[in-house]
């Protein structure tokens, strides 16, 4: 073994000598092409460093993050005694690290678990309606409360629309007035106009003061006439949009 290594060493030193002799000539001949392929030590180190990613938190402490024995040749061979086997820390062998995915409906939200279920934990007190809803609208981005009920410095995500509270401010006389106005001239007193005037929703106006069947039919006919003027492309696009909207409800 020692003889073989000494012969390789001599062969290597002779090769190095020849290299040092021939190096200046080759460098002089093809300067630009060779220089583009030279990889300096610093570049390799930087690249290795750049490629070295930290393991995910769930992998730390597992077998894949422990340095392997091949990189450290000086480590003693593992002893076969039972005491030593128990002394080595047992590493977790099953890593549960699922990819990020949409939440599944199989996991019931905490608020929806009935108190009779053994998995029940008391939900946040902010989710339970203790009194009748007040006229003040809830905050758009409330602070998250801690366990004791004190606000923390974290906030809930912003709401899509400004939260509002139902005011129930219309009296019977107001409703009668809405009905009278709508019946007097539905062309002028549309749902939108009445809703703006009385500070309620268009849905509420449509609920308390519906128009007559004749007017509904006339409005439908008007809309059909407009649809009749649609071209092929628009009609197809509108149909597709309706279909896609229906598919939202199926949530496939």
């Amino acid at each position, binding site marked *: 073994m020692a003889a073989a290594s000494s012969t390789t060493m001599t062969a290597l030193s002779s090769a190095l000598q020849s290299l040092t002799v021939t190096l200046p000539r080759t460098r002089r001949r093809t300067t630009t092409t060779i220089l583009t392929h030279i990889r300096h030590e610093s570049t390799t180190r930087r690249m290795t460093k750049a490629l070295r990613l930290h393991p995910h938190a769930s992998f730390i402490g597992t077998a894949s993050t422990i340095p392997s024995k091949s990189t450290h040749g000086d480590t003693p061979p593992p002893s076969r005694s039972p005491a030593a086997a128990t002394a080595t820390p047992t590493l977790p062998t099953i890593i549960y690290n699922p990819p990020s995915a*949409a939440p599944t*409906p199989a996991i019931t939200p905490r*608020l929806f678990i009935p108190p*009779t*279920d053994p998995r029940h934990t008391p939900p946040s007190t902010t*989710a*339970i309606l203790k009194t009748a809803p007040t006229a003040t609208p809830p905050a758009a981005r409330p602070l998250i409360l801690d366990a004791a009920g004190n606000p923390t410095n974290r906030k809930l995500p912003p709401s899509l629309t400004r939260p509002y509270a139902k005011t129930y401010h219309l009296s019977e006389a107001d409703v009668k007035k809405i009905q009278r106005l709508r019946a007097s001239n539905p062309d002028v007193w549309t749902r939108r106009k009445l809703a703006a005037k009385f500070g309620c929703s268009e849905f509420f106006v449509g609920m308390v003061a519906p128009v007559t069947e004749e007017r509904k039919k006339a409005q439908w006919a008007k809309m059909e006439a407009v649809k009749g003027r649609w071209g092929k492309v628009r009609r197809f696009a509108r149909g597709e949009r309706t279909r896609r909207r229906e598919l*939202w409800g199926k*949530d496939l």
Partner: protein
Amino acid sequence: MKRVSQATWDFLIVPRRCICGNPLALGDLLPSAFSSTARPSSSSSTIRSLVRPSQKPKARLLHTSTPLSVIPKAQPTQSAKLAALHGRLELPNKYPLTTLGRALIDPTAEPQHHLNNNSLSTVGNVLLGYYASEYLMVTYPRLPYAILKAAMEGYIGHKALAAVGTGWGVEAAFAPGTTVDPGLLQFNRLAPGTPWVPPYAGGLGFNPPMRQRKMMPPFEHNPSLEKQMAAEPEAMRRAWAAAARGKQDAIPLEGAMANFVRATVGGVYLHAGGLLATKEFVSAHILSRKLDVDKLFQFEQPTRELSRLCVREGFQQPIARLEKETGRYSRHPVFIVGVYSGEEKLGEGQGGSLPEAKIKAAISALKGWYLYSPVTGVDLPSKTDAEPDAPFSPSFIDVGDVVS
């Protein structure tokens, strides 16, 4: 190897008495049953008391006014297919081959009710409905009624049962007749294009015309589809009327196969040990199939429904909150919206637009409500069928659907 003695088959060959009360003659059912085979003397007394030659002509007058078209020359006990099916289903020896053979004869092939599987499939359908409904109600106590019916259809509807029967390796005869192997499914085939209303649809599944109207995509430029839609209601109405009168003289393969599976379950109840054996058989063959109950939902106004649910249960009004977004001004934005009641998150949805994500989040929350399932260990009501004194923990009972 599992073997069934000849004497057992002869003894359990047919019900002794017809449903209408007339005594049955064995010769009616199996014309060649006793002509060639020599039987041991132990069973001959029973057979003789059943056959009674003096009553034979009278019985023929009563029951066989039309010549028996289906009852084959070969005995069911001689069919290799039937014996193989019996063994494949791991039916006990108590389950006679003749009953399995009778389960393969559809009412459209043989109208006489003591020769076809009509009564067996009725029994089987009731038992299947019992076990499937109790399983679904205990597993998902908050399912809305429409979804519960759809899930029942998914487990014991004729399409599902036909798949079960096909999985058992049952094949259909081209047409019913005396030369057909008793191990083949015999029924009168429905002509292609003829509407057909499945039996037992009253308690199961949706109204087909309703489903047609709801599920048909609104394509307005398909003349063939329009023609089909225009033609459908009249034909379907006639099919419904025929089904209501019980005058369906032909059936598609799916329906006949489903009837066979129902009849097999009925036979298990009658011969193989009653309710306990039936429960094991149904859970092994029917309820062990996978059904994605969360895919059966279709919501029309999910946000309103969730709002009504929160009012009913005394929760804070749900508020949709934008959790993450990317590419708002690009061609393919993605929004992730969570719906919150107070600080409690109820559901999360993602979509290419804010309304879509909001609707998906409301649907996710509603599915979380409807698909609540108690922890395992809740007992099915049928637990007390076998042992009435067994300890029983009742399941969760919900107040009902959300009315919005």
